[in-house]
């Protein structure tokens, strides 16, 4: 073959960029899309965690206000918050922290329960997702005609 024709063939091959887009997609876009999906999963998990912790605080406050003593109130708050978070599928690293206090552990007193949960993101290490801590507080008022002891 004449050298001139070989040169023309090589030049034509160099200009031919068919398939370059497919290669670019495989190398760049697919991992990026995977990363975006994981990012959405992380943000969605945070949003669900906020809901769950808030709801857990509400339920725990009511449970504590219905209990018959401060100790029973703290125990009821712990159980209610743990069960609520478990039911919502929210996993807290080391379990949730539940603190129940009251203006007065007597009828009419306001019980405040604070729930703190460090949401686990161990399965999202591909995007270096950090564990995040969510805290929520809720109040409940002890019934007027409820027997309440020490």
């Amino acid at each position: 073959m004449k050298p001139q024709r070989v040169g023309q063939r090589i030049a034509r091959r160099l200009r031919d960029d068919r398939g370059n887009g497919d290669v670019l997609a495989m190398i760049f876009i697919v991992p990026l899309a995977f990363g975006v999906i994981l990012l959405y999963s992380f943000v969605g998990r945070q949003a669900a965690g906020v809901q769950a912790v808030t709801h857990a605080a509400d339920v725990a406050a009511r449970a504590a206000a219905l209990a018959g003593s401060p100790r029973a109130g703290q125990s009821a708050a712990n159980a209610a918050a743990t069960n609520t978070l478990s039911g919502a599928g929210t996993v807290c690293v080391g379990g949730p922290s539940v603190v129940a206090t009251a203006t007065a552990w007597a009828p009419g007193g306001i019980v405040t329960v604070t729930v703190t949960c460090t949401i686990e993101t161990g399965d999202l290490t591909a995007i270096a997702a950090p564990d995040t801590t969510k805290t929520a507080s809720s109040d409940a008022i002890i019934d007027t005609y409820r027997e309440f002891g020490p």
Partner: protein
Amino acid sequence: MSVVQRLRSDDRGGGYVLAFIVLMSVLVGAGVSALADAGRVSSAQRHSSSIAFEAARVGAQEVAADGSVFSLDADAARSAASSAAITLASQSDAQLDGVRIDGDEVVVTITLVVDRWFPGLGAVTITEVGRARFSTGIVEEGQ
């Protein structure tokens, strides 16, 4: 121009890359803000509902006694429910919208405004209603 120089100066597809980067940035930002908004709005709904219910419970415990006949003291119930709602809502941005006495039932309405992060969407006002009924003859939990 040599082959190497031609390859270096070839910017075909550069516009597509820029458009892709811009489009992906917008989609990711919109998706993240939409997810975050969903969680915040749902959380606000649950919390407002809890406040309304707790305040209604307080109001429904106001008893008016006429001999051996017991009934709901409407004025005291309205006052107690309002006071409770204001106290419970003070820990957040929730507001008491109103207390209504419907027979022997106390109805408390709580509103809460949530500013959404999704671009272009304004704030949303959440309204939750809590109800509690005055009852007699209850001698143990769960009745």
